[in-house]
C-alpha cells in the first residue's frame, strides 16, 4: 500500500489527536510533559534551522531555558522574572562559545527561539489552569456576585477554544483557498495563502465559535466567542506567516520530519503560538471584567 502525503497526514492525525485531547482534558503533569516535549522538539527544529542558515545557537542553554520557562509557568503563579533570569543565563552561557562572530546572531537567535517557542507555549498551561486560577483569585469574594460559572472545566474550555478554532479555521482556509483562491496575501513570504482562503478561514472560525457556544452555552457568551474567534483566525494567519518568513530566511520548506506528512512540530504549532497568548489575554480580561463588576 502506497501512502500519499495526505494519507500519512490523516494517519498521524488519527494517532496524535486522541493523545492531544487526552492531555488537554487531563491537564496537570500530563499536559506539562506534553508541552515540555513539544517545546524541546520545537527548539530542536529551530536550532536546526538556525544551523542551516549558518548561525551558531547556544544549544544546551537553549533547551534548559525552554524547560525552565515551561516548568515555571506550571509551578509559579507569576513567572515573568524567570524570563529575565533565563535571558541572563543564555547570555552568560554564550561566553563559553568559541566563535565570537556568532555573538549577535547565535545568542540572539537562541534567545528569540526560546521566547518564541517555549515562552509562547507556556500559555497552553496557563489556559488549562485558568479555571483553578480564577477560583483561587476570587475565592475571597465568597459566593460569586455573578451568573458566570467557574470550575476546573473552565480551563478545559479555555484551552480547547483556541485550538479548535484555529484548527477549523486552518482547514476552512485550506479548502476554500485551494478551490477559490486567486489573490495572494503575501506572495513574497508564503505564495500559497490567498485572501479567499483567509475569508474562508474566518467564516469557518465563526462556525466553530457558534458550535462551541452550542456545546457549552454558559461558559462564554456568544458575542465574545465570535470576536475572539475572528481574532484567533487572524492571529493564526499571522503566526503561519511569521514561521514561513523564518523558514524562507533559512530556505527550507518544512521545519522537520517528526510527524509524517505534517512537516515539523513548528509547522503544526506556528498558528497556535500566536493564538494561545491572545486567547489567554482575552479570557483573562473577560473574566476579570465579569468579576470586578
Amino acid at each position, binding site marked *: 500500500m502506497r501512502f500519499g502525503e495526505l*494519507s500519512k497526514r490523516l494517519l498521524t492525525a488519527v494517532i496524535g489527536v486522541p493523545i492531544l485531547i487526552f492531555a488537554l482534558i487531563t491537564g496537570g503533569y500530563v499536559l506539562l510533559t506534553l508541552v515540555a516535549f513539544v517545546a524541546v522538539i520545537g527548539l530542536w527544529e529551530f536550532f536546526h534551522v538556525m544551523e542551516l542558515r549558518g548561525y551558531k545557537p547556544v544549544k544546551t542553554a537553549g533547551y534548559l531555558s525552554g524547560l525552565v520557562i515551561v516548568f515555571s509557568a506550571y509551578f509559579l503563579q507569576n513567572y515573568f522574572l524567570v524570563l529575565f533570569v533565563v535571558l541572563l543565563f543564555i547570555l552568560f552561557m554564550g561566553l563559553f562559545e568559541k566563535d565570537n562572530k556568532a555573538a549577535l546572531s547565535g545568542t540572539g537567535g537562541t534567545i528569540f527561539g526560546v521566547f518564541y517557542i517555549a515562552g509562547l507555549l507556556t500559555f497552553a498551561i496557563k489556559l488549562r489552569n485558568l479555571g483553578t486560577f480564577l477560583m483561587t483569585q476570587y475565592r475571597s469574594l465568597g*459566593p460569586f456576585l455573578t451568573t458566570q*460559572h467557574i470550575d476546573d472545566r473552565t480551563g478545559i474550555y479555555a484551552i480547547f477554544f483556541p485550538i479548535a478554532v484555529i484548527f477549523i479555521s486552518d482547514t476552512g482556509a485550506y479548502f476554500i483557498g485551494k478551490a477559490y483562491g486567486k489573490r495572494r496575501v503575501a506572495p513574497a513570504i508564503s505564495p500559497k495563502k490567498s485572501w479567499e482562503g483567509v475569508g474562508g478561514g474566518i467564516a469557518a472560525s465563526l462556525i466553530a465559535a457558534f*458550535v462551541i457556544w*452550542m*456545546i457549552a*452555552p454558559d461558559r462564554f457568551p456568544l458575542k465574545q466567542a465570535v470576536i475572539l474567534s475572528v481574532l484567533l483566525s487572524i492571529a493564526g494567519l499571522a503566526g503561519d506567516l511569521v514561521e514561513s518568513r523564518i523558514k524562507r530566511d533559512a530556505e527550507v520548506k518544512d521545519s522537520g520530519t517528526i510527524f509524517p506528512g505534517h512537516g515539523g512540530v513548528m509547522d503544526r504549532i506556528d498558528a497556535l503560538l500566536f493564538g494561545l497568548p491572545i486567547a489567554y489575554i482575552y479570557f483573562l480580561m473577560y473574566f476579570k471584567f465579569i468579576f470586578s463588576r
Partner: protein
Amino acid sequence: MNSLRILKKPAIIKLWLRRSLPVYLFVIVSFVTIKYGLTAYLKHKHPPIVKDDTVFGVRLPFAKRVYRERWLTAYDKWSPYFFLVATGIAGLWMFALLKSTSDVAHDLSMAALEKSDKAETSGDLSQAIYNLKVATSFSMDDALIDSMNQKIEKLKFSLSSRSSLLSKTLTGQDRTEPEKTVVKQATDSTDPIASRYKKIKKLGQGAMGIVWLAEDRVLERQVAIKELPIHIAEDAGFKERFLREAKLLARLTHPNIVQLYDIVEDRDVLHYTMEYVEGQSMDQIVKASKLPLDTVLDYAMQILKGMDYAHGMKIIHRDLKPMNIMIRKDNIVKIADFGLAKLVGSSSVTMAGTVMGSPLYMSPEQAMGEEADERSDIYSFSMILYELATGTPAFTGTPKDVITKQIQVMPERPSSRASIPDWLEAVILKGLSKNKEQRYQTISAMLADIKNHKLQV
C-alpha cells in the same frame, strides 16, 4: 487512500464542496436539534432549584446566591457526545462524497477531452483549449495531464501566432491572406489575449478603456494591457492608417517612454500591450503631497527628454496629463499612451459611453477643435509643471468652465500660490501662452531654458 489525492485539485475540491450541500444542511439541522432538544429534555428532567438566601430567616437585601442549574451541568456532560456523533456522521458522509466525487471528476474529465477533440477538428482552437483545461483540472492521471498540458501549449502557440496584428504585418503574413484572417478573427470565438496573456489585476480605468496588469505566458514577463473598444476590421483604409501609426509608435524606444509591445485585436476590442511600470501615476503623487522643487525639476526634465525624443520622431502625444505619466519606484518617469489619442481618435467609430477626462491639460487650440501639434504638447506640459510646482491645478470648475478658461483666461500667477523661483514662473507662463506662436517652439528650447536656470541655481 488514493481518493485523498483529489484534495489537491481546486476544481475537484469545488465540485466536492458543492456536492456536500446536503451534509451542511444535515449538520445545521442536527446541531440545532441536539442543542434545543437536549436543553428541553434536561430542563424537564432537572427542574431548577428555587432557594431563598436567608440568614436566620431574614432575606439578605443585596447578596444573591446563584446556583448553577442542574440541567446545565448535565448538558455540559452529555452534549459533547451528541455533537461528536453528529460530526462523525457528517465527516463520514463527506468522506463518502469524496470517493464518489473522484469518479464524477473522472467522467467529467473524459467528457471534456472528447469535446476538445471535436472542437479541434472543427477548427475552434480556443474552445479546444478551454475544454482541455477543464479536462486537466478534473483529471487525476499524471501522464495524461502532462500530455494534455503539452497539447494546450501547442494550441496556444498557434493561436497567439495568428492573432498578433503587428507581428503578422511585420512578417508579411498579413499581405498574403489579409481578408481571411480578419474575417476569421471577427467571426470565430478565439481568445488570443487569454491564451497568451494571463490577466492578474485591474490597474485602473481610464477614459478610453480598462488597463490590466497581465503576465505574458510565452515570454514570462509582466505587461500592462489597455483595452480599447474600437473596430478596426471593418474599414480597410482605416486599418491601413492605423497600422502605419502603430508601427511608428512601436519604434518609440526611450527610457522615459512606456514601451509599446504589441497591438492585438480580439472581438472588437483592441488590446494595447505595453511595458508594465510598477509605481504610481503622477496625479496620485501630486494629490498626496506637494513636491520639493528639486523633485519637480527632476521629473520635468525627464518628461521633457521623453517628449523631445518623440517629437524628434514626429510623434505628438495629444493627451499629456498626470494620469498618463507613471513614476517608477526608482523615480524614473515614464510617459504612457504616446500617440494613442490619434490612434484612437481618428477612428470613424464613435466610442459610446466614454467621457473625455478632465480638459485641464488641453491646449486652447485643442479646446477649440483645431489640429494639435508639438506646441500643444508644450502647453499641456506647462499645465502639468504648473500643478507640480504649486501643488494645485491651474483651473478649477466643471469641465465646461475649464474649457472656456483654457481658451480665454490666463491662470493665476504660480507665485501667488506657492513660493517658486521667478525663472520657473516665467518658463511656465511662457509655455501657457494662449497664442502658440508665443510659446516655446520646440521642446529642446524649453529643456535648454530649464537646464540653464537649474545650473545657475
